[in-house]
């Protein structure tokens, strides 16, 4: 811990700038995650996520700034970093040896840390069980024969085999179906709770934010947003409580009519003929809202009370809902 600031931060970047030739890839980037938290680094193409990841894995040294992983100065102690950092790459082909099972892969990767065979097997089975590999048969199935979601989970097991303090995942949701994405994020939450490992997820979608304790959004090499998703949601009226309303039909004119309903502060189009409606503070009243819809000639088919996600916050944020933070409206998530 000698190089680390005296705190419980497991991931910390302080004023990191990365320049490659004359191009600035990261500029004065600072963020952190405390021990046992899940941190999401989110950004679109060219935001600087990959560079951030390479800095965190000590593959490139920042031009300026400091980087710490679990107290280890990444820029100076690259070898020590290998012991305390687990890494889960995005491409399937890099993740594991296709002809070997999840257990066998874990064995070979564990051996690179000179762990005893029995410990590797015990730990691999424990992690795989948390990750939903219920049977021995599944654990011994060749990696190439696993489904997309199973492969990703097997890869996570490999990343955790040496009991690292921090697990770094590079776009783990890429290529997965919607339900598998949610499933994987839940598994990661379980791992985080049961093993106490600090998790850092590099992602390009906002979905990850709802499972994270802390998020950082990068835009063109700079930090656009950094903080706890919960605290952002508190900025929304009624602490983020809102209604999902499905209409028989919803035209642009209908949306203009919704804008004129007084108790509504914000709304978002969240699906075909569906809105997410945020009433003003103190006006969170379903009956009043229904009356207003009918008064404006709108016919709601379904109504349900729900909570805002970070994605909702971010969309409102990008649309200029919070006037003080208008400077990053053009963040483009592909």
């Amino acid at each position, binding site marked *: 811990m000698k190089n680390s600031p005296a705190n419980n931060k497991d991931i910390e970047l302080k004023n990191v700038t990365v320049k490659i030739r004359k191009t600035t890839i990261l500029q004065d980037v600072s963020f952190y995650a405390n021990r046992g938290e899940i941190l999401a680094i989110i950004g679109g193409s060219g935001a600087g996520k990959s560079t951030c990841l390479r800095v965190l894995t000590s*593959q490139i040294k920042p031009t300026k700034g400091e980087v710490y992983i679990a107290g280890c100065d990444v820029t100076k102690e690259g070898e020590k970093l290998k012991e305390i950092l687990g*890494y889960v790459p995005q491409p399937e082909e890099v993740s594991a040896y296709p002809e070997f099972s999840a257990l066998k892969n874990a064995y070979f990767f564990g051996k690179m*840390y000179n762990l005893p065979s029995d410990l590797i097997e015990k730990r691999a089975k424990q992690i795989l069980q948390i990750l939903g590999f219920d049977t021995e048969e599944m654990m011994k199935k060749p990696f190439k024969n696993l489904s997309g979601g199973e492969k990703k989970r097997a890869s996570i097991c490999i990343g955790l085999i040496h009991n690292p303090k921090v697990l770094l995942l590079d776009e783990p949701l890429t290529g997965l179906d919607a339900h598998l994405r949610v499933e994987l994020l839940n598994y990661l939450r379980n791992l985080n709770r049961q093993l106490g490992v600090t998790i850092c997820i590099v992602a390009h979608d906002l979905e990850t934010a709802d499972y994270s304790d802390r998020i950082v959004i990068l835009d063109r090499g700079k930090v656009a947003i950094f903080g706890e998703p919960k605290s952002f949601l508190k900025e929304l009226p009624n602490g983020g409580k809102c209604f999902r309303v499905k209409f028989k039909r919803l035209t642009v004119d209908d949306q203009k009519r919704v804008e004129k309903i007084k108790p509504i502060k914000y709304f978002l189009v969240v699906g075909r003929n569906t809105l997410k409606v945020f009433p003003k503070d103190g006006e969170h009243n379903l009956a009043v809202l229904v009356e207003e819809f009918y008064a404006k000639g709108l016919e709601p088919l379904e109504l349900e009370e729900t909570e805002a996600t970070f994605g909702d916050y971010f969309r409102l944020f990008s649309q200029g809902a919070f006037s003080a933070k208008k400077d990053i409206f053009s963040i483009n998530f592909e």
Partner: protein
Amino acid sequence: MMMRMLYLVKVKLAPFFGSVKRIGALIRKELESLMKDRLALLVIFLLPIIITGAMGMAQYRITTLDDYYKIAVINQDTTLTAENLSLSNALINEMYMHANECIIIPMQSYDLAVYLLWQRQINAVLVIPFGFTSQLASQMIPAYVNLTLDGSDVEGQGTIIKGVTNAIAELKMDYNYTKYEIIPSSQAIWPSETKGISDIKITVPLILPMLLIGAALVITSQSVVGDIPLRRMLLTPAGKSEALIAKTISYLLVSLLQIMIVLGILILLYNFQPVGTLFNFLVVLVLTSFFGISLGLFISVVSNSRLQANQYFIFSYLTLIVILLAVPVKAIQRLDPLQLAREAIASVTARGLTLIDIGSQILYLFGFSAFFLSLAFIAFFLKKGLV
């Protein structure tokens, strides 16, 4: 004091032992991967069986008419000796008996024979001119025969001239026309005293280097560029040098297995007995494979894709073969590892030379291997952005 010393040694050597353990695990991983790779298994086991099997055909003289040189003989001589003998007919008989590896075809028309030679239907035309018998019998006027050869068939020329010369020498001795001449008697003591089309002792030095270097190149040229999860493994404490050392050792072990298969077939099936020791033969074969492994690893490290590695493999292997078979400059040939291996194998199997006797070939072969292996290490260390 002793305990403290032991403790210090243990602490100091811990990284080394850690590295050795990792190399051990990496070797196991490589071998298990190879055993699950069908193409690699084919190259390791089936290829030597097929090639060594083909070499065995030579041992059992499984030859066809195509393997013989065909000489058209046109006898224009009608003269006879005082004893009413035709020495031209006697020469043809000697050719039937002593022109080894040749088939004698009597013909009438010279033009037709030359046409057939042009068409590569035959390999030579021998004309015995009118007056051959009378001139020879007179012992005053020299007698000639006219031999027309295919100038593009370098290998055949030697055999045909040797056959004709043998027949003439036998004729001279049989009919006592050797009074004032020294007739050279030639005998091939290498590679085999036995006469025939070919011999396994000729094919072994030629084919084995091609087989071992080729097989090693095929497998190792894909070993780094195709090992994509290695990029992830290099983010663990496993170092690049450990990965390459493990690959080198693994492929050497596989080559050793391959050599054992080849030797097993040669010795048990074809009763192949090297004149020198089996150990010397084994050392030369391992060195030959080592060259293929080193070059293959270098190719694999510098390639950016499997396809590129395949292209480099074909280019380098063809270059080695072309230098061996088609470049007539000895100074260049001597630097071709295939030629070096060929000479070394021939020396230990057919002449019984020791490793010290063939020290220069051994050193060159090892030097080339060390050179490419060093380049592979350097290129691997310089390679960036693995993940």
